[in-house]
């Protein structure tokens, strides 16, 4: 019941976000053929960029003339960042909204356990994130067809998609935990978005300055860095482990808190 209701309630925002991201992906990939043709001049132009900018966006390690490299620099930034923002917004609302709008008094008077509420809402977050990524992946595959040589290595591309989903789930889980802890949705939203943006900029800063390189360990964006995935063709087990741990701890905390908390509106 709750799961179905949450899918329905969040459908509109899922559609809007999917359309916007897919549109951006298709638009960006549609300029790739011209980009590849004028690759030499483009490469020269890019080389004239300040070193720090190139580093910040991983341009120094990826070949933009190659479709996978182009994806890694241009598209991947959008899917990871926008998707993380979407996940944070989605998850930060989902539990607390009932308390904030006092509908929880209705829900709790029905024959459901607290755990059931958490489980069904969590499932709704998971399914929404998966659908969102499914759509953006399809958009990318369609976009690849613009290129003269639309083939990308399937294993590398799959790794990038898995990494993106893991990243979204990480931020989603953190926001979900906050949603169980706090009551005011506006505050939760601000904090969740703050975490996503702070993580993103820490990653950028770590790329620019060697002094700030230590920051990368605090940023999940670094864990799913496109350059290292494309060049090494692997997702580092340590990073997978850290993200999985964050996800599990957040979810566990959400269950513990929500089951025991006093919910008075």
């Amino acid at each position, binding site marked *: *019941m709750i799961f179905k*209701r949450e899918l329905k*309630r969040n459908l509109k925002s899922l559609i809007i976000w999917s359309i916007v991201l897919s549109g951006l992906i298709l638009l960006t990939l549609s300029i790739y053929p011209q980009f590849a043709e004028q690759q030499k001049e483009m490469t020269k132009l890019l080389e004239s960029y300040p070193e720090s900018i190139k580093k910040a966006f991983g341009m120094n390690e990826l070949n933009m003339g190659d479709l996978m490299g182009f994806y890694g620099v241009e598209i991947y930034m959008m899917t990871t960042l926008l998707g993380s923002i979407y996940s944070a917004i989605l998850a930060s609302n989902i539990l607390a909204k009932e308390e904030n*709008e*006092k*509908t*929880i*008094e*209705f829900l*709790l*008077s*029905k*024959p*459901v*356990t607290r755990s059931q509420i958490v489980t069904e809402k969590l499932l709704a977050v998971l399914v929404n994130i998966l659908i969102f990524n499914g759509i953006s992946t399809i958009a990318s595959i369609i976009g690849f067809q613009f290129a003269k040589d639309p083939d990308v290595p399937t294993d590398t591309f799959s790794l990038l998609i898995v990494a993106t989903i893991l990243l979204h789930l990480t931020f989603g889980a953190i926001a979900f935990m906050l949603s169980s802890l706090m009551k005011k949705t506006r505050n939760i939203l601000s904090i969740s978005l703050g975490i996503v943006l702070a993580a993103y900029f820490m990653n950028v800063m770590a790329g620019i300055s060697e002094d700030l390189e230590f920051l990368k360990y605090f940023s999940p964006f670094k864990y799913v860095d496109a350059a290292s995935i494309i060049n090494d063709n692997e997702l580092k087990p340590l990073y997978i482990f850290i993200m999985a741990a964050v996800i599990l701890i957040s979810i566990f905390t959400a269950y513990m808190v929500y089951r*025991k908390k*006093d*919910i*008075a*509106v």
Partner: protein
Amino acid sequence: MKIVDIKNLTKTYKKNRGIKNLTFSIEEGEIFGFIGPNGAGKSTTIRTLLNFIYPTSGSATIFGKDIIKHSKEIRQDVGYLPSEVHYYDDMKVIDLLKYSAGFYKKFNPKRMKELAERLDLDLHKKIEDLSFGNRKKVGIVQALLHEPKLLILDEPTGGLDPLMQNTFFELLAEERKKGTTIFFSSHILSEVQKMCDRVAIIKEGELVKVETIENLTKKNLKYITITFERAEPIDLKLEGIVKKEVKGNEITLLYSGDIKALLNKLNALPIKDLLIEEPTLEEVFMHYYEKGGVDNDF
């Protein structure tokens, strides 16, 4: 069989007053009033019974099941009407009722339509567009729809116009005939008097007394204001005057005696105006605190 059995139930908050050592029980099939001024702990008690909040100490059972361990099972057979109803704004009335019904084992669309019709509720309106009273009606249908064995009503008549209140009381009377137990929380003495078999009186988080309505109404306490033509000392002595206050040409009485005797007496006096009212709860409380404690004949 005891439908609700509360033992030493205590809930303390950091700031707010909670409830202290509540102990009482509700028998099967009775309408049990729960009365006290705002902030006395009525809603806290109800929320604890439904496990929205956890008790600090003490315990309670509903249908013989523990309110914490078996909360879900209990709620399968409970209908709850909160004092303020808040529903999902994006839903129509019918969406909400169907969503609500989906949680229970049985759903009877015919009953939904009948209830809505009796309460004059439009099922196809958006909840967002409903007035406070109409939202309350959605709450009533939602609480009655699955034919619960126990109805918990928290200030149920707030927002309903007198005509609707009557319909609502009729509905409750029908439920009672079917054997439904009703826990009726209110701060309005008269409606509790009208509906209930027994009442528990709560004040500042503590149970003052559990009493049958019969004993309550035997007292038949009235609050009487008499205005005289002139401000002159009038000797008004009558059996049943609990409290008397004189202010200029106005006398206020708390009176529990025979109304006829009072009227006969007044008939001979130069009175200008007369007002007979239900005493407020506060006055009722005052009444038996003055008489020295709670174990009185009230």
